[in-house]
């Protein structure tokens, strides 16, 4: 069995199982925890508070005007590379075919050249966020292995994908095998580290917004 067949065969299968078990475990483990009882009189009706919770997912997605000067650039870069990742994952023809194998349907792809440009920009932005993390004193003190490994594995997938496209550093099938294998590692790491924010970020913002609205402090 060659590297590519291994990476997109048994390795991907194993990684997918671990990913699903891990994600379900963590989500169920948190969702089923006891929630703190609201002791004060509700300041907003339930429906209004729920709507406020939904609104918070948007309002908390951009810094408060008071902080925009300090954090705006960092957030803009963060959003940009996330958008880049989404485009590459969802609009590149071979990736769409991977999805189609699981879902049973596909959708139109963007031209390969456009995907390559977006990938290069995304890679540059990932380098920028690493630079910021390493040079920003507070961020550096807050960072641990989880932050760096999550960055590393995400970037590795992008870099191996670009190398495979450019046939740079080896034969295409070897580079493609490494690309898929790095994605397998990302799937394995996903439920163990901060990449889980993909599942937590919006529900946690919504719950915070709901709780604050019920307490009379819609955000």
């Amino acid at each position: 069995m060659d590297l590519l067949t291994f990476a997109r065969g048994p390795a991907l299968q194993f990684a997918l199982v671990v990913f699903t078990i891990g994600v379900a475990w963590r989500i169920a483990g948190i969702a089923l925890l006891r929630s703190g009882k609201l002791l004060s009189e509700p300041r907003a009706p339930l429906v209004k508070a729920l709507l406020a919770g939904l609104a918070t997912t948007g309002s908390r997605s951009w810094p408060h005007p008071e902080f925009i000067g300090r954090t705006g650039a960092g957030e803009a870069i963060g959003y940009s590379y996330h958008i880049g990742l989404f485009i590459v994952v969802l609009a590149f023809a071979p990736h769409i075919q991977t999805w189609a194998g699981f879902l049973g349907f596909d959708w139109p792809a963007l031209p390969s050249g456009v995907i390559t440009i977006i990938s290069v920009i995304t890679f540059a932005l990932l380098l920028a966020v690493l630079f910021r993390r390493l040079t920003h004193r507070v961020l550096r003190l807050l960072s641990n292995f989880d932050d760096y490994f999550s960055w590393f594995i995400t970037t590795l997938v992008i870099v191996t994908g670009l190398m495979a496209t450019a046939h740079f550093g080896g034969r295409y099938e070897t580079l493609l095998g490494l690309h898929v294998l790095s994605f397998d590692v990302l799937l394995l790491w996903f439920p163990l580290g901060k990449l889980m924010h993909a599942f937590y970020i919006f529900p946690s913002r919504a719950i915070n917004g709901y709780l604050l609205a019920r307490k009379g402090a819609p955000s």
Partner: protein
Amino acid sequence: MTHSTIGDLLLQNGVSRRAFLKYCTAMASLMALPPSMGRALAETLRAARRPSVIYLSFQECTGCAESLTRAFSPSVESLLFNVISLDYQDTLMAAAGHRAEEARAQAMKDNDGEYLVIVDGAIPTADGGVYGMAAGRTYLDVMQEVGKGAAAIICLGTCSSFGGIPMAKPNPTGARPVSEIISGKPIVNISGCPPVPEVITGTLFQYVSMGKLPELDELGRPKVFFGNSIHDRCYRRPFYDEGKFAKTFDDEGARNGWCLYELGCKGPTTYNACATVKWNGGTSFPIESGHGCIGCSEPEFWDKGSFYAPLSSAAFGKAGNVSPREAAKLVGAAAVVGGAIGLGAAAVSRQRQQKLAGAAPDKKEG
């Protein structure tokens, strides 16, 4: 017959100098050499002795020999067959039975250490090699005997190069490629199922005209023919780059000649000269005929999943590539397992929360 020079033989056969030069220039071009090399090749070839060639057929379908003999006539390929001495080929030779075997033995004796061996087919090794025999001897035995005195071995086709279909799972005969049987001899793999005729003749031509084997890639294939992937040299490549794909073999995309990636084309991971040299005298190649490449010149091509599943699809599941139903079952089962573990983890946490709440009675929890 091997003692006369190629020049003598060409004169005897009435081949003109012009025709011979034209042929040599074409072969130089095929080998990616400058046209000026054609004259030098012609001079070398004219003075060269015809090498003795022993062609062994093992676990194979004769497709490789068919490919070789499908060279257009009169063609440059057939001319090349006037410049080697094919002393043994059990399909093409007139002799049969013990006379054929004697011809092989004589050729080996007369040209010990100098003859070329062409091997077509894999070699069964299970149970002492009894699954493949000719003239009362196992293929394994014949290969080992003939291989000893060879100057070089040329493996024709994917079966002799990498095991091919005989070595595909479950491989009941223990089929193996030549490279796993013979060591210490130069081995050239001309893979393909079958190989492109011009790749076969081009490699032989280079050996005869230059007296050395061509530069090989890491799989032992001549770089000049196997240096690029089908995908990189495919005339449909621009459609891949534009994101235009045929979805079925008869839709508008297929009629417009769009890329066949989504229909399972293995061109991106397959190295061969199909897209450049083409088949049937340069007429076309499989992708040009509307079918994706099946990757037949690569090792284990038969066991790499469906020919019709895209290269980027997940390669697990009953059919070799996962179906949505299989994926749903797998993910669903894993989610149930994960959810159950999460439920257990939450139950433990809730007990702990309850204990903490009990320790702090003024902080009731719901």
